[in-house]
C-alpha cells in the first residue's frame, strides 16, 4: 500500500483497484458513515471532501493531498523573499539607522 495513502486516509483492509476505477467513468463511491470526512486539495487549489476510504485513496493516488502548501510553490517563494526582506530590514535598523542616529 502507498505510504502516503495510509498517512492521509488511514489503514484499511480494502485492496483498491485504481485502474478499474479510472477506466469506469460511471463508478460511484459509496459514502462510509464511519469514515471521518477528509478535505483534499489539488495543485490548482481545488478542494474536495471525501466520504470513504476508497474515495480518499483514489484521490491521493491521483496526486491530491491534505496539505495545500505542498503545491503552493509561488507562496513559498514569496515567503522566502519576504523573510529575506525582513532580515534586511532588521540589519538596516540595527547597523545603519542606529549608527546614523548616534552620529547625529
Amino acid at each position, binding site marked *: 500500500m502507498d505510504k502516503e495513502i495510509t498517512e492521509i486516509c488511514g489503514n484499511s483492509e480494502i485492496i483498491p483497484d485504481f485502474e478499474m476505477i479510472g477506466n469506469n467513468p460511471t463508478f460511484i463511491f459509496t459514502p462510509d458513515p464511519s469514515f471521518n470526512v477528509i478535505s483534499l486539495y489539488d495543485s490548482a487549489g481545488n478542494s474536495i471532501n471525501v466520504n470513504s476510504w476508497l474515495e480518499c485513496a483514489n484521490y491521493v493516488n491521483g496526486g491530491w493531498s491534505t*496539505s495545500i502548501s505542498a503545491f503552493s510553490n*509561488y507562496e513559498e517563494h514569496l515567503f522566502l523573499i519576504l523573510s529575506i526582506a525582513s532580515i534586511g*530590514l532588521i540589519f538596516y535598523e540595527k547597523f545603519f539607522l542606529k549608527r546614523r542616529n548616534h552620529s547625529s
Partner: protein
Amino acid sequence: MLIVIFLLFIPWVINNGDQIGSFNPLSNETVGNYQSNTCEISLFQFLSIDHVENFEIRFDKSGSINCFSKINGADFFNNKLIVYLGTNLNIDFLLQSSFWLVLISFIPVSEKKMRLKFQDISIFLTTLLFCVHFIAESGYYNLNSKIYSQNFNNNFVLYSLLITVFILLKIFSFLMENRSNSFVEYLPFLFVLVGSYHSLNLNIFLIIFVFIGINFTIQNRKLLFGLFFVIPISSFWVQRISKEFVFFDIDKLNGFSSSAYNPLSILFWSFAYYFLIVGFVNLLNRTYKNLNLERIKFNFLVSGGLLMFLSMISALSTLGNFLIYYFLGLQKTGSKSLESVQENAWRGISSSAESVGEFYAFTILIVAILAIRSKTYRLRNVEYVLLIANIYGLYRSNNFAAFSSLLVLIVIFYLHSNIENKKQLIILTLLTLSFFPVIYITIFNTYSLEDASRKLIKEGLEISYIENLETNEWNLNAVDQNRFLEVLQSQKDKDAVSSSLTYLVEKYHYSDRNYIPNITTTLSTIASPVNRGEKWGVFFGKYDPSVKTFFFGTGVNNIINYYLNHPTTINEGLVLPHSSILSYLIFIGFNGLIVFFGFVLFKIYKNRSNPIYLILLTFFLINILKNDNLLYLNSLILFMFVIFCDKLLHKEKTVNE
C-alpha cells in the same frame, strides 16, 4: 513621486503573457475565448487591445500569485461585458501596504523625533494579535484564496501574511520617528485614503493604531490596567455565543467589522478596538502641542476637494474607477456615473453618501467657525476653490441632517461670538434651534402624531415572521388596524417577534397613556421626521437580545449575531441599523452606552466655556443619532478626534489670547 507612479502602474504591466495574439477585442462573440483562456494576458495587454465595446472591470479575488494582474475570465451579463481581473491575497496585502506607506512618507518630517520604546515587542504582539484575526475569520479568507487554511503546518500563505504585518510595522516605525508629531494633522486624508485592503478584512490604519496602542499600553500602567476591563467583558461576550457563524458578508464595512461570530473573532475585535482607541487618543494627547488648527482646517479642505475630484474621475473612467478603488483602499467601488441614486444622493468614491456628506459638512463647519472666530472672514484663493468643492460635495450627498445641523450650528456660533446681550442671545438661539423643526412640521410633515407614534412597531412587525394574520372584508389585518398586542398573543411561536419589539409593543399597549413620554411613542416620533421610521422599525424587528446582552452587548464591531440569530424576512444584503447609537447598543449594550454618554457629558461639562468644542461635538452627536458612521474607521477616528480635541482647542485659544 516616482515610486507612487511605479506602484500604481507597474503591477498591472509586468506580469505579461505571450499569448496576446490569440485575443481579439472584447465583444459578445469573443467572450468565450476570454472564458477558456484565463490568466494568459495582463491587464495592460488587455487594455492595449483596441476594444470597441464598453466593459466593466471586476475582481476575481481568489486568483493565485501567478494569476495576479492577469485577465481571469469574462462574462456577458445583463447586457454588459464584464472582465475579471485576478488578484491575490498576499500580493494585495503587500502592494497596497507599500503604496500607502509611500503616501504616509509624504507627511513632512519634523525636527522633533519620537522614538517608540519597546518597538520590537510591540511589533511582535501586534503580529500575534493579527494572527488571531487570520485564524478567527478563516471563512472570509477561504473565499478570497483557494488555498487559504488555518493549519499552521507549511502554510506559506499565512506565514507571508504575518511577515507582511511585521514588515509593514517595521517600515511604519521608521517613518513615524520623524512624523509622529504632525501625523494627526493629516487625519482628514483618511476620507480619501480609506486604507481598507482589497482581499483582507483589515484596514492599514487599524493595524497602525493597534500597533501604537499596544506600544503605549505596555509603557503605561493605567492602560495595562484597562486590559483588566477588556478581558472580562470580552469573556462575557464569548460566553454569550449560542451559535457560531463562520462567515457573514460585511460588504461596505470591509476592514472594520467582524466577518465571523466565534470566540476568537470576539477576542480579536475586543482587543483591537481597545488598542485602536488607546493608540489614537494617546498619540493625540502626546502631540497636540505641535498641532495647528489652521493646518488641520486646510487639510480638511484639501481632502474634501480631492474626494470630489477623485469621485468625478472614478465616475467617468473605467480604469480610473478600478485604480482608485484599489489604491485608495475603498470599501466599495466608487459610483460609476455622476447620476444620483437612492433619495437623490451621490456617494462618489465613498461607501456611504451619508458619511461623506457629514465629512463635507464638518469641513465647512470648521472653516466657518475659524473664520467667525478670527472675525476676518478671509480665506486664501485656493481655500475658496476647495470650499466650493466641499459645498458641492455636500449638495450631491443630499445629507439634509448634516446640512441643517451645519447651518444651525454656524448661526448659533455666530450669535454667540457677536451678541453680548444675554437676553437677545437666548431668544435668537431658541429661534434658530426651532427654525427647522417648525418648517418641517408646518410644510413637510405628512404624519399625524398618532401615525408617527406607531410607525416603528408597524415596520418591525412587517419584517417579522408572523402567522395566522386574518384579514377582514377590506383586506386589512391586525397590524393594519393597529391591534399589535393581538398579533403577539395570537402567535404560537413566541420567538417569532423579537424581544425588543415585543417589549415596545407591550409598553405601547399596557401603559396608561401611549403618548409621549411613552418609550415606544417617543422613539417612533423621533424616528419619523428624521426619516428613520422604517429603518429603526427593521432594527427592532431584528434586535432580539436577552436581558444580559441588552445590558452588556454581544461584542464590538460584530453585527452578525444581531443580523442572523433572529430570523426575519430581511436576512439578505447588509441592512444596517441607520443609527450609530443603535449599532453600539448591539456592540456594548445599554450599560456601555450609559458609560459612553456619561463620558461625553463629562467632557461637555469640562469644556462648557469652550464654544468651538461644544459646536463640533454637538454636530457629531446630532448626526450619529441617524447614521451608521461610527461603523466606519475614518468616521470613528474623526469622532474620537472631536471628543479629545479639547486640549488642542484650549492651546489654540491660549495662543490667540
